[in-house]
Each structure stands twice: as structure tokens, then as C-alpha cells.
């Protein structure tokens, strides 16, 4: 008899399914679905600002505020940057461009290259968040709040939210998370908080460590695990050859490897 593989993929096979269900149970909203208003869903999304991934993102912004002030950026401009761009790698690239006295066009190109990854991320996110009556303009406005953390949280949680409530739920996550981190940056400036290098090293390490675990956990089929492993392996190899396009090529080639795997596993299942 064929058993459906558990959605956790590779390493979950062989574990009893109740363990899996138990793990999933605390990630979903607990109130009955029909009785909840839009405001209530918005607030559930906003409440995720207190979740571990959101707290990790805030510590990353503490690190960013330190980096920005080291480079002589005033508080208001650093906070404005976080709210207007809302992508930490792009912020860091822009500060590098400012420090290197790049022209505005060269700075825009450098930032644009670091932000291309948002296009496939948002494209993959749209089917997750779209409800039956979602207007394109709400998606365009909300897309500003999609960056890695909100993307990973959304991919994990949106499937447990009724389709017509997903937009408000994500608005709750995105708007609150962006506002909170803008305030965190301002606060670090106001307190002129400085930490020993060891603390900054730990703060900078939190983000990749968190993404590593949560990206694996957010996958619902094995193709995501294949894509993730190929991205991890391809990046250093491509970086050595073409450092200017390392992320882009990692995405493109990692995608091809994954599609080859999907085709191969389908072909194997058919025979």
C-alpha cells in the first residue's frame, strides 16, 4: 500500500504522524475560523511581531543601526531607509555605495542587483496570499512588506488562514514588522547603544542560522529541499567564478537543478 509521504520531507519519514501534527498544531490560529473579523486576523498577524523570527529580525536591525551609524548616517535617514527599502541586504549595499561615494545611478544599479531576488520571491508568494476577491492594487501595496523574514513566516502560516482573510493577516504581519524595525533602528541611535564586537558577531549570525532552520521547515514538498541544498552548494562555487552575479546565477541554476529533479522524480513515479 502506498503511504503519502509526510510534508516535512526527507528527515521526517519514519516518525509517527502524531508528532508532526502536534508540531503543526501550535502554529495555526485556534479560534473558530468563521467567527473572526478582519480586524482580528490583522491583529493575529501583527502579534507575530513578538514571534522568534521577528525578534531575530529586530536583532539584525540592531546590527544594521550600528553599521549605519559607523558610516556616519544620521538617525532619521537610517530609519527612513529601513521603512522605504525594507530589505536588509539592499540597505547594506546602499550604505556601502554611499560610503564609496558612488553616483546615484551606480548606487541604484548595485541595489537593483541585490533586490532582483525579490521578484521570484514575490511571484511565488502571490498564489499563497491571493484570496477569491483580492485586488491587484492591494497586492502591489502589500508587496512592499515582503522581504525574507515576512516571506518565510507567510509561506509557513498563510495556508492555515482562510483565503479571504490572508491579505489582512499578511498586512498585519508586514506593516507591524516594518514599523517595529524602523523604531528599533531609531531607538538604537537614541540610546546610542554600543556593544562589544562579540555581541555584534552573534547578532549577525542569528539571521542565517534562523533562515537555515525555518526555510527547511517551511517546505511542503521535497523540491524545496532540493532547491535549498543546491542554493547553499552553488553559491560559493558561483561566487568564486562570477562574484557580481553570484545570487542571480545561484537562483537560476538552483531553479534548473530543482526542475530537473522534479521531472526525474515524476518520470520515476510514472514507470
Amino acid at each position, binding site marked *: 500500500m502506498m503511504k503519502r509521504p509526510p510534508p516535512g520531507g526527507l528527515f521526517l519519514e519514519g516518525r509517527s504522524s502524531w508528532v508532526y501534527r502536534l508540531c503543526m498544531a501550535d502554529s495555526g490560529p485556534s479560534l473558530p475560523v468563521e467567527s473572526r473579523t478582519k480586524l482580528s486576523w490583522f491583529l493575529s498577524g501583527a502579534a507575530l511581531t513578538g514571534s522568534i523570527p521577528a525578534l531575530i529580525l529586530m536583532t539584525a536591525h540592531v546590527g544594521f543601526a550600528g553599521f549605519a551609524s559607523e558610516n556616519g548616517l544620521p538617525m532619521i535617514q537610517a530609519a527612513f531607509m529601513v521603512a522605504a527599502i*525594507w530589505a536588509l541586504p539592499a540597505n547594506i549595499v546602499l550604505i556601502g555605495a554611499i560610503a564609496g561615494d558612488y*553616483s546615484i545611478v551606480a548606487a541604484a544599479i548595485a541595489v537593483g542587483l541585490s533586490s532582483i531576488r525579490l521578484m*521570484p520571491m514575490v511571484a511565488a508568494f*502571490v498564489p499563497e496570499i491571493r484570496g477569491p476577491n483580492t485586488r491587484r492594487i492591494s497586492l502591489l501595496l502589500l508587496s512592499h512588506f515582503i522581504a525574507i523574514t515576512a516571506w518565510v513566516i507567510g509561506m509557513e502560516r498563510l495556508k492555515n488562514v482562510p483565503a479571504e482573510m490572508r491579505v489582512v493577516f499578511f498586512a498585519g504581519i508586514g506593516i507591524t514588522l516594518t514599523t517595529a524595525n524602523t523604531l528599533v533602528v531609531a531607538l538604537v541611535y537614541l540610546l546610542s547603544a554600543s556593544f562589544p564586537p562579540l555581541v555584534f558577531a552573534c547578532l549577525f549570525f542569528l539571521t542565517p542560522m534562523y533562515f537555515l532552520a525555518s526555510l527547511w521547515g517551511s517546505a511542503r514538498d521535497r523540491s*524545496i529541499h532540493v532547491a535549498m541544498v543546491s542554493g547553499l552548494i552553488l553559491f560559493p562555487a558561483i561566487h568564486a567564478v562570477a562574484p557580481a552575479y553570484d545570487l542571480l546565477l545561484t537562483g537560476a541554476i*538552483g531553479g534548473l537543478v530543482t526542475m530537473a529533479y522534479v521531472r526525474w522524480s515524476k518520470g520515476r513515479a510514472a514507470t
Partner: protein
Amino acid sequence: MTWHSLTTWWWPYLFILLAGWLPTDIWRFLGVLIGGRVSEDSEALVAVRAVATALVAGVIAQLVLYPSGALAESALSLRLAAAAAGFCGYLYLGRRVIVGVLIGEAILVAGLLL
């Protein structure tokens, strides 16, 4: 025109908008337009999701292998060992993200202090 070209108060904000916000959000808007055209269970969506996941994995690799700021001074082998141990801890100790993060951080701190 660089950051230091003009000394008016609004120039830095315009610079951030033109060189930061515009080249970032334009990709998000394009993503919405593309995502609106792929249907839920098409192969195209699997492909888009695969590219997005590989990119995020690339960002993770970048943050571990070529970090900026204070982390850049630590040894590469230490960062790799901490990340690998944290990820294994996540996989084999009940799949809790916080467990993986704490193990990775603990090894990093231990390595930096020793």
C-alpha cells in the same frame, strides 16, 4: 551626482528613494504581475518557487561565508561548524527552530571566546 553632491536637507531622502526604494520595489511590483499569471498548481509555480528558494539559500550562504561587520573577523571554519551543528540540531532534536539557532550561537560564542 553622489550622496555628497548636494547639501540641501531633502537630497539624502531623494537619494534613498531613487537609489534604494525604486530599484527594490520595482522587482516586487514585477513579482506581483508575474505571480498573478501563474496558476496555483502549475509547473511554472513550482519553478518560480524553486528559484526563490535557491536565492534565499544563496543569501544564507552569503551571510555565513562572506559576512559583513563584526562577524567578518571570525574564522570561516568556526562559522561553518556552528551553522552545520545548529542545522543538525534543528533536524535531529525535534525540529524546533530555536534549538538550531541556540546551538549555532553557542558554538560561535564558544569559538570566539576560546
